[in-house]
């Protein structure tokens, strides 16, 4: 009896231990997680930001002043110390995020969350993310200065990780039950690849190939025009290109393969884009140029940005950094300011690959059978066996689609050609921009930059403004890369790159301002083939009209423009709909809603119902026009909103307007009515379920935690207007991720804010403390310190010293 009881109690103890020490599904190991001395309760505090910290290998003392926004102002005596300190400080506030992003970039998420991420990881691997990061590391290591700074940054991160006690690791590690690993230079390369993927991997070549096959060339060109009737390119139309003396690649005589593709890889968010602009001294209220930037990305917590001041006796940069990369990415120093928007250039192409029968490791190219290189991707999965995926690399790039993955049939594959695989020292551009003193320095800094291609806006205290569309861009023949190409035909290979000095740019244009909002980069006079999967068509018009509307602008004008909610798309179509739609049969409820939207002034403001009605109506209308696209097992991408509206207004009787499923022949105006009636129904249903559908409630903007918007760590129902295609591009979970305005006085004066907070710890009051001001269109004054002498703005100081 005694031994039975003994065994029973032993069993009970072991079971309780196991049960409380093990992660079950998404439930963390509950004993480990809840205990107050190493569990999450230890994260219930703000970070320590005072005192002395010793860091291995510092050459000199580094002073870090924090202001009330928890922005670190780092004062080092040399670059090595500076970037070591940047690594240390960033890790201190954002370790989990900076590491998680590199896991996502490398296709290693299954390692943390298990099998549910395997498909994602395989996609990432098949896109060659790791391969690209290795190429980037090779290039960065060719430059000894970049290499030594990357190393210093990694040492800084690692000295934080080494000092970290288990009880202090970020709460997400405790929740998912894993531990931070060593930071390496490759992780910085992976982060930069992540940005390249997010910003320069959007493509629909395969969807276009399907559309071309199904609809034919004439119809295709009507649906997907390369040039829109309304054009206001990034680089002003009257720019002189006569200095360009390297011709465009000649178009070969050859056919493109018309394949049927059922499904394609996941795409980055289609709204990833941005605004930036700068006005010259003549247009400025004070005579100093003023610059603004707001990158539009997914609204995430912890934020993609971390604001820092990075200073040595030689340079003094301030602005938004990307946790994991060195230097300031969008910001200013005492001489210049800069910011980025995504350049709309096609840098992803696809090739049909024919494999040799009986030997899947040989593929046809230039009338020969060539050998592929195999890269075995080993994907660790939490709690399960490692998954091995062999990816074959042709000289084009990785064969992403084949019989093992989303492929069509044996013997055929699709290989990806992507600028992300070429490798480049993109880090150097930012290191150089941080210390640039004038336009020439800026141009020199950009010359190293390959991807993701960006519109780099520039303003200087000397009075220059400029904008370069910079990236390593293939010199394509007309039409190259618009559709799937023939991987066996050497004429279809990329033939070379546009020489960097011939990248489109403008300096001090006559109109007194430069701007970009992801629209067409240049007009047709630019002597190279320019094509992209999608051009922005509305925001840029509103920005340029605004900047052309007055002689002088002040800071308030810039704030107003950032927060401009004018819905040009709605203003473009709605009056035409009101005019042509037959309203004789509308019910009283329908007339009420129609009168509501008729009274709307086209501003997507939070208390208006117009934007909600428009949003539902447009969504219904768009689906109804393109009902022809609902074909199973064929990947297609519907035409742009801009072209859809053009067709509704100009070709309202086109056969595409007809709804295939009905016996009647519909035209545009019938579609207006049908989609309006649907809209009324769905708004009424929404109202019953959720209450009043004013724009704030209907859009219900949220900023979601990086772990699938874990509700506990996210912020919901934010009162902010705007929307897709609007200068204030805030849609449900996407929008201005960093708003900055810099006046190039001496020293510059700057404002900045982002939807998040400096701390990555959900237990800190600095985790999300900017969000309310951001939503309200307010800014923080950035305390640009001119020396390390403490000012009133400093709330605490930490000193980093060598051990």
């Amino acid at each position, binding site marked *: 009896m*005694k031994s039975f009881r003994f065994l029973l109690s032993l069993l009970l103890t072991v079971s309780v231990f196991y049960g*409380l020490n093990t992660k079950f599904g998404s439930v963390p190991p509950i004993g480990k997680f809840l205990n107050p001395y190493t569990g999450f309760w230890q994260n219930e505090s703000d970070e320590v930001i005072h005192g002395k910290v010793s860091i291995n290998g510092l050459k000199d003392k580094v002073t870090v002043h924090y202001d009330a926004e928890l922005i670190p102002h780092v004062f080092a005596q040399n670059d090595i110390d500076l970037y070591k300190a940047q690594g240390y400080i960033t890790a201190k506030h954002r370790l989990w995020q900076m590491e998680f992003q590199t896991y996502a970039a490398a296709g290693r998420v299954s390692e943390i969350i298990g099998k549910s991420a395997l498909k994602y990881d395989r996609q990432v691997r098949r896109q060659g993310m790791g391969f690209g990061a290795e190429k980037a590391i090779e290039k960065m290591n060719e430059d000894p200065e970049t290499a030594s700074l990357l190393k210093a940054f990694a040492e800084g991160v690692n000295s934080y990780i080494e000092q970290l006690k288990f009880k202090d690791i970020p*709460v997400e590690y405790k929740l998912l039950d894993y531990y931070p690993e060593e930071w390496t230079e490759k992780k910085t390369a992976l982060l930069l690849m992540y940005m390249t993927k997010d910003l320069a991997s959007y493509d629909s070549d395969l969807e276009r190939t399907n559309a071309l096959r199904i609809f034919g060339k004439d119809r295709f060109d009507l649906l997907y025009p390369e040039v829109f009737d309304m054009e206001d390119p990034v680089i002003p139309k009257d720019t002189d290109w006569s200095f360009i003396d390297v011709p465009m690649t000649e178009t070969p005589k050859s056919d493109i393969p018309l394949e049927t593709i059922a499904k394609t890889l996941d795409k980055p968010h289609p709204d990833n884009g941005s605004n930036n602009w700068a006005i010259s001294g003549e247009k400025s209220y004070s005579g100093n140029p003023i610059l603004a930037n707001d990158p539009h990305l997914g609204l995430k917590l912890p934020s993609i940005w971390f604001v820092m001041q990075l200073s040595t006796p030689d340079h003094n940069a301030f602005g938004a950094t990307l946790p994991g990369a060195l230097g300031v990415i969008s910001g200013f120093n005492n001489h210049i300011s800069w910011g980025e928007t995504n350049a709309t250039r096609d840098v992803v192409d696809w090739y049909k690959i024919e494999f040799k029968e009986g030997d899947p490791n040989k593929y046809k190219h230039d009338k020969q059978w060539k050998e592929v290189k195999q890269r075995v991707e080993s994907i660790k999965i939490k709690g399960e066996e490692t998954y091995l995926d062999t990816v074959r690399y042709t000289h084009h790039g990785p064969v992403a689609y084949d019989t093992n993955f989303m492929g069509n049939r044996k013997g055929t594959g699709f290989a990806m050609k992507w600028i992300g695989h070429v490798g480049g020292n993109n880090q150097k551009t930012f290191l150089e921009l941080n210390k640039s003193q004038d336009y020439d320095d800026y141009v020199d800094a950009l010359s190293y930059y390959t991807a993701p291609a960006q519109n780099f806006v520039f303003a200087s205290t000397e009075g220059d403004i400029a904008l370069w569309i910079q990236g390593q861009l293939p010199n394509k023949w007309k039409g190259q890369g618009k559709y799937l190409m023939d991987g066996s035909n050497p004429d279809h290979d990329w033939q070379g790159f546009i020489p960097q000095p011939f990248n489109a740019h403008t300096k001090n244009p006559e109109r007194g301002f430069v701007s970009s909002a992801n629209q067409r980069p240049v007009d047709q006079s630019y002597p190279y083939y320019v094509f992209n999967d999608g051009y922005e068509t509305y925001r840029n018009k509103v920005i340029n009209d605004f900047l052309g509307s007055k002689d002088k602008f002040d800071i308030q004008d810039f704030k107003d423009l950032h927060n401009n909610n004018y819905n040009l798309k709605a203003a473009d179509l709605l009056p035409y709909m009101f005019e042509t739609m037959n309203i004789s049969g509308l019910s009283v409820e329908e007339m009420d809603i129609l009168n509501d939207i008729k009274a709307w002034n086209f501003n997507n403001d939070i208390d208006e119902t117009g934007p909600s009605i428009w949003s539902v109506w447009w969504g219904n209308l768009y689906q109804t026009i393109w009902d022809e696209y609902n074909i199973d097992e064929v990947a297609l991408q519907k035409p742009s909103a801009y072209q859809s509206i053009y067709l509704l207004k100009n070709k309202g009787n086109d056969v595409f307007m007809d709804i295939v499923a009905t016996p009647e022949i519909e035209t545009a105006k019938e579609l207006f009515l049908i989609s309006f009636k649907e809209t009324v129904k769905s708004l009424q249903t929404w109202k019953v379920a959720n209450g009043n559908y004013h724009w704030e409630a209907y859009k219900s903007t949220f900023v979601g935690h990086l772990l699938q918007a874990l509700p506990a760590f996210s912020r919901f129902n934010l009162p902010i207007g705007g929307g897709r295609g609007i200068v204030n591009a805030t849609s449900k979970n996407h929008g201005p991720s960093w708003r900055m305005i810099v006046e190039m006085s001496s020293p510059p004066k700057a404002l900045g804010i982002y939807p998040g907070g400096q701390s990555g710890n959900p237990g800190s009051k600095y985790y999300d403390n900017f969000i309310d001001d951001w939503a309200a269109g307010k800014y923080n004054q950035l305390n640009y310190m001119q020396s390390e002498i403490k000012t009133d703005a400093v709330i605490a100081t930490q000193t980093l010293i060598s051990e």
Partner: protein
Amino acid sequence: MNTKGLNFIATFVLALILSFFMPWWSVMLAAFIAALLFSLKGVSSFFVPFLSILVFWAGYSFILSNANDFTLARKIAVLLPLKGNPYLLILLTGLIGGLAAGVAGIFGGQCRLIFKKE
């Protein structure tokens, strides 16, 4: 002081000391050792260490969280889910610690009995 009181205090003090250098399950070790030192009978062999650690864990987590306006506790109480109530989360923390200590206490008692016999 009776054995129950001594066991309660021993469990608490041992758990406190061990917590400085051991993982969460140090409370099990504390309750186990306390049971060897001060043996208890019947349900009290579970409930005394249970209460001792409940007080330790709930008390400590309250002190930590109270100092930070329960910022994180409110969020974790959404996650687990306890309707965002930090006090329920503090109670749950105490119960979990108590459970671990309680079963270890029973086990300690049984060990002592076996050991005595031999």
